[in-house]
């Protein structure tokens, strides 16, 4: 066994010693050239895509671990999928320890860049954009790691996604920082995920800025421990253009931060202003579900020390306008549906909403907005809730930088 381990280590070292760069330049059959490089790369290799525009007809994919795919910058190396004829995304990653950096993906028919089941997946200095502006026919997600572990997203820009610009789903251990999301339905979304740090991002001109959701019916549920801090969540003013059936179609235009279900979410030190419906909204999942382990209520939520500007002057959610009129023209910046019990669940719902004023809609059950009985208080709740510990990525990944 011991010899085997040593032999394995030697192999690994040998592999790294021979790491090579596979260059791809514009011209010729770029579909075949790029895909062939992605197939030929061995662990430790770099696929270097030279500056230029690459017109692709089909999705690209990488299934080799330990590969870096590197362009000459998000304004210089452009993978255009305007003429895409197949695949659900532009670039698909299904292997671990992959770094994607310094290029752009434009106009994919479905999602932009997706990773599935990858460990240590890093998206650095990328741009994913639908160049025709926000449209319902744009792809759903720009950057889309799902069922992945150790996710790093740093200095990524996403524009025009018809669902979430940057979406991390059913993943664990996530750092999402210094990125920019604009003109998407949701700027940034963390869904059914554990341990996420979302900070120093700008989310603007979306319908909703930053969402932290937990949904039923999925292999990974029970999302928890997300810190949303030092972000600028401002002027989210693009009318929600999501296709109706999608869960984000229910995000009111002009929502700053929205937490749906989920546990241990701390929202602090953000700048939140210019969002017409509300600054921060905490709501229960409102549709039916059959999973006995699913909890539809947001709980253990802290909202503190945010710089809350003008928000909530023209709320577009159900009953919002009536509420605004009753409250002197605007709804409180922090809104909570106030659902604290759910049949079959014994978890206590605790909150500390020390920014305010807080509007507690005091709904009897999820989604019963027509029966809102709002109560406004300067703050709400004083639960002592420990902040989730900072997310720590593996050393080599944490050292990656734009």
């Amino acid at each position, binding site marked *: 066994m011991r010899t085997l381990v040593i032999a394995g280590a030697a192999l690994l070292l040998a592999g790294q010693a021979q790491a090579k760069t596979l260059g791809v330049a514009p011209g010729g059959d770029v579909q075949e050239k790029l895909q062939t490089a992605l197939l030929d790369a061995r662990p430790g290799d770099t696929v270097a895509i030279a500056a230029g525009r690459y017109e692709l007809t089909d999705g690209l994919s990488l299934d080799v671990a330990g590969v870096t795919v590197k362009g000459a910058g998000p304004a210089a190396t452009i993978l255009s999928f305007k003429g895409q004829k*197949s*695949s659900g995304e532009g670039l698909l990653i*299904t292997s671990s320890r992959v770094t994607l950096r310094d290029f752009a993906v434009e106009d994919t028919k479905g999602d932009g860049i997706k990773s599935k089941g990858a460990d240590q997946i890093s998206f650095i200095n990328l741009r994913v954009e639908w160049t025709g502006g926000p449209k319902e*026919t744009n792809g759903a997600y720009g950057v889309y790691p799902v069922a992945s572990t150790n996710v790093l997203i740093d200095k990524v820009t996403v524009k025009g996604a018809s669902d979430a610009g940057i979406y991390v789903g059913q993943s664990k251990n996530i750092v999402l920082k210094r990125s920019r999301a604009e003109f998407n339905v949701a700027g940034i979304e963390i869904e059914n995920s554990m341990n996420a740090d979302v900070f120093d991002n700008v989310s603007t001109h979306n319908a909703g800025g930053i969402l932290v959701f937990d949904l039923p019916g999925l292999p990974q549920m029970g999302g928890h421990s997300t810190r949303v801090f030092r972000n600028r969540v401002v002027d989210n003013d693009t009318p929600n253009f999501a296709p109706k059936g999608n869960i984000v179609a229910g995000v009111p235009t002009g929502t700053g931060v929205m937490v749906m279900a989920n546990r241990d979410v701390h929202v602090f030190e953000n700048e939140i202003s210019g969002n017409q419906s509300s600054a921060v909204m905490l709501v229960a999942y409102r549709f039916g579900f059959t999973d006995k382990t699913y909890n539809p209520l947001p709980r253990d939520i802290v909202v503190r020390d945010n710089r809350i500007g003008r928000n909530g002057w023209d709320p577009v959610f159900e009953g919002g306008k009536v509420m605004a009129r009753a409250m002197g023209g605007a709804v409180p910046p922090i809104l909570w549906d106030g659902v604290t019990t759910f049949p079959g669940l014994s978890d206590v719902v605790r909150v500390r909403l020390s920014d305010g004023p807080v509007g507690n809609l005091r709904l009897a059950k999820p989604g019963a907005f027509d029966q809102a009985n709002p109560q406004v208080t300067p703050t709400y709740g004083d639960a002592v809730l420990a902040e989730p510990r900072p997310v720590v990525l593996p050393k080599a990944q944490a050292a990656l930088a734009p």
Partner: protein
Amino acid sequence: MSRALAALGGLLGLLALGGAPLEPGQVELKFLMAATPAPTLSAYRLFTDDAGRLPNVGVMPYALNTPLFSDYAEKSRWLYLPPGAKARYRPTGALDLPVGATLIKSFAYPADLRRPDEAVQVLETRLLIHRRAGWTALTYVWNADRTEAKLKRAGARIDVSFTDATGQPRQIDYRVPNANQCKQCHSLAGRIAPIGVKARNLNGVFAYPEGPENQLAHWKRTGRLEGAPPPDKVPRTAVWTDAAEPLAARARAYLDANCGHCHNPRGMASNTGLNLDLEETRPARLGLGKHPVAAGKGAGDLELDLVPGHPDASIIAYRMASTEPGVMMPELGRSVVHAEGLALVREYIAKMQRP
């Protein structure tokens, strides 16, 4: 333990075989097992003719009760087993195939689908090879003269014209998958695995040269399959085109073959929570009352995956009816709508009772 020993025995058998001189005309097992794929299909000698139609010794033709739709291409399938090696029966999932086993599938179009045996043009032949390290997927694309097929790892597009079953001329921008796309469909918990060769989907009659016989019975009788109970004790996938079979069984068979390879708890679409394989029984996992998660525009302004009685309100039917990437399902393997498959699934949904 006995399984491990058997596997070891098989491995030793292979090693011995690798050293023995090949009979003229024998399948080149050592090329199948080599880490570097052969540049041409003929190198493996899986066929005895240049056109890839006549299988060599040890290469057995088979058919599936309900196959995946592939843009109306006609698919011919063969299984190669090394000399002396046997497939092992499993009641669910693909048969347990020994190292060296190779699944071979050729995609072809007759000039006129109403005369499927005439003027047939083969486009590509795909191999799924069971090597010691696991399964490998390779694709070989035929030349214009159909005399040689060359390895194509990065995929390709081929213009195809034919006359369809209703007599209409059709043109298809046929897509040969790249090696990763092979795996996207053939992925089970992140590793490549066979899809079609499930006992239940093989449990049907095949027209052998010596006469029709149940495939599992035939393989057992000829010493290529062990551990299989008699066919009537084996689960059976319905034949989706057989109107004599129950509608639900046909539709579930169709969804299993066309969606279940990704939409299962260990497939590429596991994260959706929608499972369409035949083993799934929970209504919510089969799409009833299920909201889309990551469908984007694929939801088509509809709210639920499957609404009993209402195909027009069901996202499953909407996505089957689309040819737009990002909307259409499956994501890979078709560019046109499978009108007949869609009609079956729509009828199934229309007649479905609320649970």
